[in-house]
């Protein structure tokens, strides 16, 4: 059983689009690592500071619904993985962002609104809250000084195989 995760960064808004995650002016880069410093540089949101050190040290993102909508740019996934993110937890995702995440081995988890609300509440009280997820057992551990507990999540067996195979390209090359 291998757990991934760590400290959590929160984004309390629905419909965060991929233009906000990485503006188009950086799409002229062909190398993933070059984009890393620009994560959510232009995101305008109360209480959000793209220069916050927590943004660069967290491993898990928790947000609301329809995360990653808009442009198909996979750069929006790479800019998270290049900054060390391993897990995103949200109520829902835009289709292309979700598929891009699986294709890159970034674990995206969907939980109901009530559970997400609860995670936001804990996060407000304990900024050192951590989340660790295990893709095999489909379980995640929430650790904080307020409360610690485990939650179940589900992931399609297909995407599980894709992630385990090291991404879609290796999977497709082997299978088709």
């Amino acid at each position, binding site marked *: 059983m291998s757990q991934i995760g760590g400290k959590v960064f929160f984004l309390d808004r629905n*419909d965060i*689009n991929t*233009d*906000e995650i990485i*503006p*188009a*002016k950086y*799409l*002229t*880069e*062909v190398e*993933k690592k070059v984009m890393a410093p620009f994560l959510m540089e*232009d995101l*305008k949101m109360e209480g959000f500071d793209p220069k916050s050190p927590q943004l660069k040290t967290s491993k898990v993102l928790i947000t609301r*619904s*329809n995360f990653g*909508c*808009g*442009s*198909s*740019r*996979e750069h929006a*996934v790479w800019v998270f993985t290049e900054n060390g993110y391993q897990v995103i937890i949200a109520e*829902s995702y*835009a*289709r*292309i*962002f979700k*598929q*891009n995440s699986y*294709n*890159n081995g970034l674990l995206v988890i969907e939980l109901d609104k009530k559970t997400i609300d609860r995670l936001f509440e804990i996060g407000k009280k304990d900024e050192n809250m951590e989340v660790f997820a295990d893709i095999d057992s489909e379980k995640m551990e929430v650790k904080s000084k307020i409360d610690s507990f485990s939650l179940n999540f589900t992931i*399609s*067996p*297909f995407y599980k*195989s894709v992630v385990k195979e090291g*991404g*879609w*390209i*290796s999977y*497709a*090359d082997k*299978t*088709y």
Partner: protein
Amino acid sequence: MGKTTAEKIFETHMVEKPAEDINVISLDMVFGHEVTTPPAILDLQEKGLDKVFDPNKIKLVIDHVTPAKDTQTAIQHKILRDWAKKHGIKDFFDVGRNGVCHAIFPEKGFVRPGYTIIMGDSHTCTHGAFGAFAAGVGTTDLEGGMLKGVCAFKDPKTIKIEVNGKLPKGVYSKDVILAVIKELGVNGATDKVIEFTGDTIRAMSMEARMTLTNMAIEAGGTSGIIYPDEITVDYLWDFIKDEYKTKEAALNDFKKWWSDPDAVYDKVIKIDAATLEPMITFGYKPDQVKKVKELEGSPVNQVYIGSCTNGRIEDLRIVAEMVKGKKIHPDVRVILSPATPKIFQQALKEGIIDILMDAEITVTNPTCGACLGMSNGILAPGEVAVTTTNRNFNGRMGKGGMVHLASPATAAAVALTGKITDPRAFL
């Protein structure tokens, strides 16, 4: 139980169902542009998998920044150009032969009813206007498509939008799709296909239909879909006349892709065209839509006419008709980009370019540039634009800029007044 168009297309292209609701389907076309394709090419090369499933089914174009504006964009162009040559991809549209992907590929006859198409661009849903299943994907899915000719999708649940009646004067397909997105919301069609039917749609040209399907993604939709009919056959005739002896034969064949009368839909929305008015977005999400008259008088700095949504000949004709013999308002600048060289040349022949330039509109080469704030018309912080494009996200056309999405007629009315203006005053 009957099937929808998307279900029929999936059934005929099924490679494997690796999980209950996942379908790996074969692809008829894989399109690419210079922004999202080069990382796929570099990754294939790094993995030692630099090969393609079929060079005749891969079509490439330079459209986001063209001509190159700096060293980085020139490198993107070069990677695509060299790779096309290496793999014998003959349909590569380089600078001078290039146009906005979702306008030029249909124009070249690459899109047919019943096709499955992917591209590393979210507005790929446009091509569903021909009765195809066409979906935007990320770089990795594009890469898998170029390598193996397959892609994975969830079951294609379908939302049916049925529009009936005659569109009132001053109301166009752009106003229809803005009204639809307002109704569905920005994630109302996530993981679903949007089928557009009804006599209003059947009366539309292919250009107007592409404006509808283009914005399916703005409601989260995977593909837009419109049944292929006589108008589709006419548009494609030059490309299909060797295959079908008569237009009737083509139409009869295309009809096999129509949804069955007893097909099962996730949702059905009926719209009475006669009740629609010119529409415009007001916030930073494409479902924040009002009637143009509700925002009238609000000042505007720039008007942009073009893009994969509304940069086609019909759109240019509407604008030319409205600005003919007039000058644009002194407080506003107007940029117009015909979506392809063919559209540009047609506009020249019809005298449209003269009319636009006499009105003091800047006409640029075909490019996506300004729509996503990459080149050719970026806003300064605090500036406001009215555009015929598809996304009004915060900062989309330049950091701190505000974008209102509207029809070419509304954009032309704003060009003349410098303020948000209902186009019906000029028609």
